[in-house]
């Protein structure tokens, strides 16, 4: 059990990472990665939804008739998303507004459906919970890296605190930081994700060569 759980952790965080390797679920969250804080909140919401819906689906796995399996999974997932949505609206209304429709779009995030189908519907609740949690984390950390660079280059800030301006001034550039507008707009998201995948694959190839 312990070694299996460790394998899951390794798999989800790097070897079989949902974003870089499986290219799943980028639809709903790439849009919010131009601001670090929004990405963090979105990621936490997603981790909550994946882990708990994995748990519920796994507990129910022997009761659900296989013909209506998908429908039940979608319903379980959307109930958790409703919880996240209401919570965000109550405690962080500004961020909830900024995230707009993307919180609801967690439902159609392919990662969640994929994990339910591939793992939770045929494994014990404990392991499924770990798997759901870790694939959420594996997804969130990649997006956080992307968001880090997009906000830093796009706005010159991090969590709203100006970073690039003081840095540029301290090395003698009087004009301060010129914002990379492209990073805030949609193309920046596509490019950053492509660069991330490029770097990840390069590292992976290198490890492969060393093993040979």
């Amino acid at each position, binding site marked *: 059990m312990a070694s299996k759980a460790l394998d899951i952790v390794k798999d989800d965080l790097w070897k079989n990472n949902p974003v870089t390797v499986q290219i799943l679920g980028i*639809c709903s969250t790439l849009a919010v990665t131009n601001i670090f804080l929004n990405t963090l909140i979105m990621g936490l919401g997603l981790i909550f939804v994946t882990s708990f819906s994995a748990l519920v689906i796994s507990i129910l796995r022997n009761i659900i008739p296989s013909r209506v399996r998908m429908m039940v999974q979608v319903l379980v997932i959307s109930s958790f998303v409703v919880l996240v949505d209401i919570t965000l609206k109550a405690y962080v209304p500004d961020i909830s507004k900024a995230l707009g429709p993307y919180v609801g779009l967690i439902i*159609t995030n392919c990662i969640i459906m994929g994990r339910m189908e591939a793992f939770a519907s045929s494994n014990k609740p404990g392991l499924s919970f770990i798997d759901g949690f870790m694939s959420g984390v594996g997804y969130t950390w990649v997006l956080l890296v992307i968001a880090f660079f997009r906000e830093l280059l796009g706005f010159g800030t991090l969590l709203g605190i100006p970073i690039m301006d003081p840095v540029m001034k301290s090395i003698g550039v009087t004009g301060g930081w010129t914002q990379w507008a492209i990073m805030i707009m949609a193309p920046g998201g596509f490019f950053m994700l492509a660069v991330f995948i490029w770097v990840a694959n390069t590292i992976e190839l290198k490890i492969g060569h060393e093993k040979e």
Partner: protein
Amino acid sequence: MEAISPWVLFFAAIFTGNILLTYFLGMCSFLSVSKQIKTASGLGLAVIFVLTITSAVNHIVYYNILQPLELEYLRFIVFIIVIAATVQFLEMFIERFSEVLYLNLGIFLPLITVNCAILGVSLFMVIRNYTFIQSVFFGAGSGVGWFIAIMAMAGIREKLNNKRIPPQLQGPGIALIITGIMAMAFVGFSGIVQIQ
């Protein structure tokens, strides 16, 4: 929102606010089904079809059932059920009445239920308070925009088949870079019509 003409929304949804290139919706199927023009056009047509119908149905359901009962927070669950049911119904309908259409669109319909663009359009429509006519035009325009994007992508990817690409970028990597360049091209449209 009464003032905006539906046609403006239609063209805005295609060019300035392209559902895929500016809102990142429908990326999963966009990346996995854009390897050939033929399959891409099948999926694209199915998306236009489903988007137009579901945005109409969801508009009716939201404003006539959920709002009077003050059940707006249930909209995620209701929308996804409506979408799944519409897709299922369409599949049976098409199978019954047009074999040619079924052979071309049939296999793509189940894929569409989990396409984020469909749910995304319904959620946008609620957030932006569109009227019924506006919603339908917005849905159709978004579908056409998605269709154009996936067709362009499939065309480019077919040409890339026998080109030399760095091994680390093969597959999704290069596809994302191309999408980024396409998105930059669409940013050029942003002055034409402005909606929010």
